[in-house]
């Protein structure tokens, strides 16, 4: 590891993308993710990559479709309203089995919403990122260092499973500055050499490749989708990530992801000082959701609290994973309001019968 430097989450993520071989970035300005584009517009030309500001989010995701289809590692980033615009293209990317990385630095919604941090896109990103039967891999970093580290993982798994990968951050993570270290690697732009399916010119050496999501025969389309879901099953069995802390003796386990997980951790520490046995569970992959890991972390718990910057979205997956085995309560702030550890601690005290 090289020396640590102080960076914004958005910038750390952008630098890490270059180091993961991301050759092309296509994006459109929107707060609070714009630092990613600004950073890459400076860096990309210096390392032989391409930065292009598209005319819209719709165009940017379709540039990604074209670039990914030609076998090149590429990335786009946006924030909530922009992600809604990208969903058509993401569906085509998933339908054509193309790997790419999409960043969502969430802000408050619906509509134009606000520009403060939020986690209200959980449902959209994990369950309905476009029309049709498909999933995207979803990662939820919680520190600036993790913003950087997750990018390589996202590119690698997107390539491995030939599916889009989303890094679901929020305005807090994107804008905050923390020390970050990068592994000392030479920046090397990706090529299509390990992607025999790529439509990048057959060079008169092979049959022509077709990148497509149209299958007019229902049985053919069904077969395609079933094959894709087999890959999803492998991802669900092998790629879940989560961090459980102090759950062994915990009566209450707090489940939270992203920046909220850090607030939940502080709240759990405060609650411990008040005599409550509280542990924390942080899903790092939101799809696939770490169901086994959550059940393991909650094996001695009596109650579960889910904390989110939304009206309660991930809490559905927590309940599904626990399958009614434990009572699951929810605490959240929304619209761009960040809950304080004290608020969360008060909720824990209420659950633990301490007032």
């Amino acid at each position, binding site marked *: 590891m090289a020396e640590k430097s102080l960076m914004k989450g958005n910038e750390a993520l952008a630098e890490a993308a270059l180091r993961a071989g991301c050759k092309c970035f296509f994006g459109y300005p929107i707060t609070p993710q714009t630092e990613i584009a600004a950073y890459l517009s400076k860096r990309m030309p210096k390392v032989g990559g391409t930065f292009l500001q598209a005319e819209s989010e719709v165009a940017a995701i379709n540039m990604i479709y*074209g670039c990914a289809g030609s076998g090149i590692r590429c990335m786009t980033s946006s924030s909530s309203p922009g992600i809604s615009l990208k969903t058509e293209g993401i569906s085509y990317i998933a339908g054509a089995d193309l790997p790419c990385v999409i960043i969502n630095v969430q802000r408050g919604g619906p509509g134009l919403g606000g520009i403060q941090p939020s986690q209200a896109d959980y449902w959209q990103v994990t369950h309905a990122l476009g029309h049709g039967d498909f999933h995207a891999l979803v990662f939820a970093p919680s520190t600036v260092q993790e913003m950087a580290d997750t990018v390589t993982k996202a590119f690698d798994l997107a390539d491995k499973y030939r599916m889009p990968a989303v890094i679901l951050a929020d305005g807090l993570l994107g804008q905050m500055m923390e020390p970050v270290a990068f592994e000392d690697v030479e920046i090397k732009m990706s090529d299509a050499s390990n992607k025999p399916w790529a439509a990048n010119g057959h060079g008169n050496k092979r049959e022509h490749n077709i*990148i497509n999501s149209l299958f007019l025969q229902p049985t053919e389309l069904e077969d395609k989708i079933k094959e894709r879901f087999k890959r999803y099953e492998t991802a669900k069995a092998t790629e879940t990530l989560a961090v459980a802390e102090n759950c062994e003796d915990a009566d209450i386990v707090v489940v939270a992801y992203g920046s909220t997980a850090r607030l939940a951790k502080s709240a759990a520490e405060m609650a411990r000082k008040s005599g409550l046995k509280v542990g924390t569970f942080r899903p790092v992959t939101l799809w696939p959701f770490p169901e086994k890991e959550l059940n393991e972390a909650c094996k001695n718990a009596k109650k579960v609290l889910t904390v989110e910057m939304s009206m309660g979205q991930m809490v559905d997956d927590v309940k599904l994973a626990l399958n009614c085995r434990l009572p699951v309560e929810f605490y959240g702030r929304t619209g761009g309001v960040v809950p304080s550890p004290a608020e969360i601690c008060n909720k824990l005290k209420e659950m633990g019968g301490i007032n």
Partner: protein
Amino acid sequence: MPEFKRPHALTDAYLHYCPGCTHGIVHRLVAEVIDEMGIEGDTIGVCPVGCSVMAYDYFRCDMMEASHGRSPAVATGIKRANPDKFVFTYQGDGDLAAIGTAETVHAATRGENITVIFINNTTYGMTGGQMAPTTLPGQVTQTTPYGRDTSVEGFPVKICEMLSQLDGVALAQRVTVIDPKNIRIAKEAIRKGFEFQKNKQGFSIIEVLSTCPTNWGMTPVQALDRLRSEMIPYYPLGVFKEGAVR
């Protein structure tokens, strides 16, 4: 004597187009240019949503199928990743001049080194003949049953005229394929488009006035007559802009 045969850049698949439709001729011209320039192995085509949605089965070069209207953005992504390859899009009027107008205009103004083949037949063919952005005033379609009323539906979009105002455009030319002379002019225009691309000299668009006998409710011969007597006066043939932009 050269033998008349299928260009190599076309596969052996049967085209699904209706009798009298001019898509087949335009496919052939694109394939002939690819053959003659010897670039099949270095070319990636992008097909649209519309009648030519399955063009990926007909061209032997690598192909990508885009969502409706987004072909110029998809082509941009391919081209930026592979600046030395040839990238063309093949789009209809609804795809290019309605839902995809923004992508078309911005690829053009960026001077994106791609070639756009634009089929203008004044209707949405695949969905059964609805009003297109290029439908002529007074033209009866499924969604203008009393004829396109410009006080309600506005006026047709003249793409070549519009794009010729943009600095990034190296070639904006309107052609047709109604007879051998015009077919030769059309092929030459397509070749020019690919040449501009080869030299990285800017965006090229070749608009091809085309027929849709099925949705026009005409025989192929009647359709050609309509194209000549009604479309060409509204959409004059010719070069609207030509010259390297960089």
